[in-house]
């Protein structure tokens, strides 16, 4: 049995409440399903939705496939609650549960087999499956594709901010600024080089080359953001304290004001007609890349040094950690990824204006980081996904959406002040491992008899 499930069932069984016991009982049959099994189940579920979704939705009295698990439909028309629940049960919950449970032993064997190859083989297979699930799910409507892409970008933003706010333990408010720099940097690069538009005139390079140069554009955006980050880092890392918070906040204001006054990129009117290169596969690949690199970064010597700086800067210094250099590198690194996320964001929406990167964005990114959990890699994923999906699902509530989401976050903060999944290492091997080894299976069966 894997470590993660072990911890979970342990927590639940010590809880004396009946809900815990009930959850434990429901969870028990699934405790030996590896990630591969869940992915298989999800794949079947989304394939089923592609095939039967519209048909089933019509039968249940809905016009089309509910976009986000039926939340929006339910909030618009309360009479549809039973059919939305039935739809979710029939299309998602039932197939996933059945397939995951039935394929458990097969998936365990498969996962073990995959792990006997080099790690990357197993990782690629899992990612391929994950992409298949996501692509099929998002393929149902353009709206879903947009939500999926924005959520993935949210994951990148949250991961990179977590490097500063979680691993480094400072409070940075400059992420909207970095995002803006990245968005404008990447947009200007692609539009000057490859697009015939009003702002920059005819393209300098053949547009056919464009999609292949898109990574360069994103890296240009990231580098722009990192350049901006040096402006913040130089004054704020001279002393320890809350001055990063204030300087980074001032930086966000400065960037916004600067872009508003830059007529070349449209000033307050914004910049539009970016090429449509940030499709779902591109965003997915960049998110995975970001996840991989940030996970390796925080597990590296540098990442551990960063934690040491957070916990006690003086002691870290005495232990030969170059604290200033460590903080600078981590900050520029985070800014780079925020810039890349901004570049993708600009090419997803294909229109940006400086107002997008204001205090509202700051509140969103901070909420995602602290909701998900500090000092972990899984936390930001959970935070960004739940925050984005919740935000979209509650959209029909209009004004009240921005009362419910903050209330939820306050409750999370009160009961788990560092977020839902905080201070956990993201161990890929542990994640991909079969949850039940063959010899254990034999013991298990013997014990049952």
């Amino acid at each position, binding site marked *: 049995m894997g470590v993660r499930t072990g911890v979970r069932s342990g927590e639940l069984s010590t809880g004396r409440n009946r809900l815990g016991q009930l959850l434990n009982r429901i969870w028990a049959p699934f405790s030996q399903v590896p990630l591969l099994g869940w992915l298989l189940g999800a794949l079947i579920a989304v394939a089923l939705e592609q095939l039967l979704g519209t048909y089933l939705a019509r039968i249940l009295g809905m016009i089309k496939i509910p976009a986000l698990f039926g939340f929006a439909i339910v909030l618009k028309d309360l009479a549809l609650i039973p059919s939305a629940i039935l739809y979710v049960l029939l299309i998602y919950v039932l197939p996933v549960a059945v397939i995951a449970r039935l394929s458990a032993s097969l998936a365990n064997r498969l996962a073990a087999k995959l792990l006997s190859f080099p790690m990357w083989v197993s990782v690629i297979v899992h990612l391929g499956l994950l992409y298949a699930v996501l692509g099929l799910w998002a393929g149902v409507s353009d709206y879903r594709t947009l939500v999926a892409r924005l959520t993935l970008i949210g994951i990148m933003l949250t991961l990179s901010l977590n490097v500063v706010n979680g691993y480094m333990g400072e409070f940075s408010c400059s992420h909207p600024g970095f995002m803006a720099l990245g968005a404008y940097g990447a947009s200007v690069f692609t539009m000057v080089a490859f697009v015939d538009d009003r702002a920059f005139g005819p393209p300098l390079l053949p547009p056919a080359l464009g999609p292949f140069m898109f990574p360069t554009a994103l890296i240009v955006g990231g580098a722009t953001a990192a350049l901006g980050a040096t402006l913040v880092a130089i004054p704020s890392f001279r002393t320890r304290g*809350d001055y990063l918070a204030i300087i980074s906040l001032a930086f966000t204001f400065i960037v916004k004001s*600067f872009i508003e006054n830059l007529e070349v990129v449209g000033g307050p009117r914004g910049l539009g007609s970016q090429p449509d290169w940030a499709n779902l596969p591109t965003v997915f690949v960049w998110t995975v890349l970001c996840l991989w690199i940030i996970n390796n970064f925080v597990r590296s010597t540098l990442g551990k040094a960063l934690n040491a700086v957070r916990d006690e800067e003086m002691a870290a210094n005495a232990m030969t950690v170059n604290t200033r250099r460590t903080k600078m590198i981590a900050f520029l690194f985070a800014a780079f990824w925020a810039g890349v996320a901004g570049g993708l964001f600009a090419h997803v929406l294909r229109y940006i204006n400086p107002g997008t990167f204001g205090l509202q964005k700051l509140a969103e990114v901070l909420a995602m980081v602290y909701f998900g959990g*500090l000092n972990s890699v899984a936390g930001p994923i959970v935070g960004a996904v739940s925050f984005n999906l919740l935000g979209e699902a509650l959209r029909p509530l209009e004004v009240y959406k921005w009362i419910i989401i903050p209330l939820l976050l306050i409750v999370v903060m009160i009961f788990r002040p560092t977020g839902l999944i905080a201070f956990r290492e993201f161990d890929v091997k542990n994640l991909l491992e079969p949850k039940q080894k063959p010899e254990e299976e034999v013991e298990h069966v013997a014990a049952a008899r």
Partner: protein
Amino acid sequence: MTFFFQNVVNALQWGSFYALIALGYSMVYGVLLLFNFAHGDIFMVGAYIGFFVVSGLLAVASMSSLLLPNWLLLVLGIIFAMFLTSFVGMLVERVGYRPLRAAPRASAAITGLMIGIILETGNLALLGARRVSFPSLIATTTYNIGGVSITNKKITIVLVSLLLMLVLHQFVQRTKWGMAMRATAFDFSVVPLMGVSINTIAALTFGLGSALAAAAGILFSVAYPVLDPYMGITIGWKAFVAAILGGRGSILGAALAGFLMGFIEIFVVVIPNPFPTMFPFSLFPAPYLFPSTLRDLVAFSIILLILTFKPHGLFGEAHTARLRL
């Protein structure tokens, strides 16, 4: 020269708003080492409470045919609104900050931010997107002193805020409660051992700060009588910057930095253009060096520069506040 003094008057007015709000940030930061990110929205709530109090008083006065002078209504409005808003501040502390006192400080900052959003949205949901206009209590009279025109509103605003700052200073320096607050700021962990309840001090600090923010809100709506739910965001964050600029927990520093902020913002856009036709500056239409759209950029750049050379603010002492993670 007239022009200069005219701008000094404007800067003093804006400086009063910033200083009053910055004091709230600075006290909470000084005493409890927390950022109260809901403070800008408490300013907004204060302005709205002031609006309701003043409207109510006007209605009562007209119904009972009582002839209250308008300045008395304003004073009563300020006092009532300060009193009521201080409870909003205490509520924010009770809900968002007290349960998180042992938690990392950043988490408390997030709850503050979220409470701010709830206050804005709650206002929007309760009162609708319609903007309300503050009843004009004082008829504007303009005095002309040597070519500088000063309205009575500006004089009122500056004088009332200076008076409030003086009262706050006396409270903190002369009373037992003030002493307890200073002691808490000095050492957070020893004070409870001396029989001073941290909870009471925290509530007091939030209450005082919120009362000042409410006063700022009413004074602001006397000068700019259109209220909307998002009026507190920008002014609040700017006042936060001013509070940090003043130095941690320094009341004098916060007040002075608030005025400095007002002066920087006003004077940045009236620097005369020394090279009206030279290349880089001819991009901007003369006669000023910076167009007013560059106000935030230049103002915050100046503040960044100041913080680069005085990282602990103007009046702060060196300290090593850490996020308790």
